[in-house]
């Protein structure tokens, strides 16, 4: 009887699993209800390409720029992040105020983030790594593109780090 209960429970978990698991980190949980062909993803690649050009030309992927930021020797990175956040805030406010829909006519939904200790502990670990590599995850891809091929190793190591987090997740304080 107990066994059966456990089994039933497990089935339920598996059924709801997908959304549950993906929403664990509160990112990328919105699944479109509209059936999309694979090539609809190319528009995101186009946005990514513009982003990559910006990353390189504004020197956001520069190890030197990140050092200057943490040494308070340049306003550049603070200006980039500050103005990006200002424009982002205004955009999100406008989207909410005018209930702007997606190009497919779906409502835009934003997931609230829940506080957990990971944001502090993980945040500090990431910050330490950021100061060493001079790159957060996005710039890692762009640094490889600029010809620093060895950064592929840093990227693989970051993927391994993500995997180890997933492996240890239940044992870590949250």
């Amino acid at each position, binding site marked *: 009887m107990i066994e059966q209960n456990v089994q039933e429970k497990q089935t339920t978990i598996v059924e709801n699993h997908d959304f549950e698991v993906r929403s664990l980190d509160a990112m990328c949980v919105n699944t479109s209800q509209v059936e999309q062909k694979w090539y609809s993803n190319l528009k995101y690649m186009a946005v990514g390409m513009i982003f990559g050009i910006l990353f390189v030309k504004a020197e956001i992927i520069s190890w030197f720029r990140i050092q200057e930021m943490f040494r308070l020797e340049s306003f550049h990175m603070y200006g980039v992040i500050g*103005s990006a956040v200002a424009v982002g805030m205004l955009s999100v406010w406008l989207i909410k105020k005018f209930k702007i829909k997606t190009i497919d006519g779906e409502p835009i939904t934003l997931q609230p983030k*829940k506080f957990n200790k990971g944001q502090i502990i993980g945040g500090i670990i990431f910050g330490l790594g950021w100061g060493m590599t001079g790159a957060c995850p996005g710039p890692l891809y762009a640094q490889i593109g600029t010809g620093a091929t060895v950064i592929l190793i840093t990227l693989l190591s970051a993927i391994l*780090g993500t995997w180890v987090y997933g492996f240890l997740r239940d044992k870590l304080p949250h």
Partner: protein
Amino acid sequence: MNPLEVLKQPWPWYVAGPLIGLTVPTLLILGNKSFGISSSLRHICAACMPANIPFFKYDWKKEAWNLFFVAGILIGSIIAIVLLPNPEPIKVHENLANDLAKYGITDYSHLVPLQLFNWKALSTWRGFILMVVGGFMVGFGTRYAGGCTSGHSIMGLSNLQLPSLIATISFMVGGFAMVHLILPYILAL
């Protein structure tokens, strides 16, 4: 100066920052996607080696847009370096240049200091720590924190999320501690 020459110069923050900020509404309007890059590392894990770990057991194909996005970043960076190369050496603050010179870093031809980050250096302690340990901490830390500079500092703050502010402050604390307290010892190795 002709327009192409201007584009080849480093772009100022007040051009780049607002354009990066516009990524937030662009992704939302294109398909209700929340801006975030570190998730791509997780999707790669889910696609390549889920190993029965619950955290990686989901249909990563539903998040394929994120992988297209980061592939775009890689292509965009190649376009920038091929079509809009900056002929000048990278300008950095004098104090930084003086400090780095003490560790033999004098090459400003590339955005990544190639004297620190190169294939040969991987087998030295300095290179191993900077590239392999550093990369591991970026991947582990961002996922533990639930996002990176894009997901928390830009997307999260744009949506006025307090946890994202806490995460952003923690990123900065870690970065300041590394650059001021620890990195000098690593560079001296």
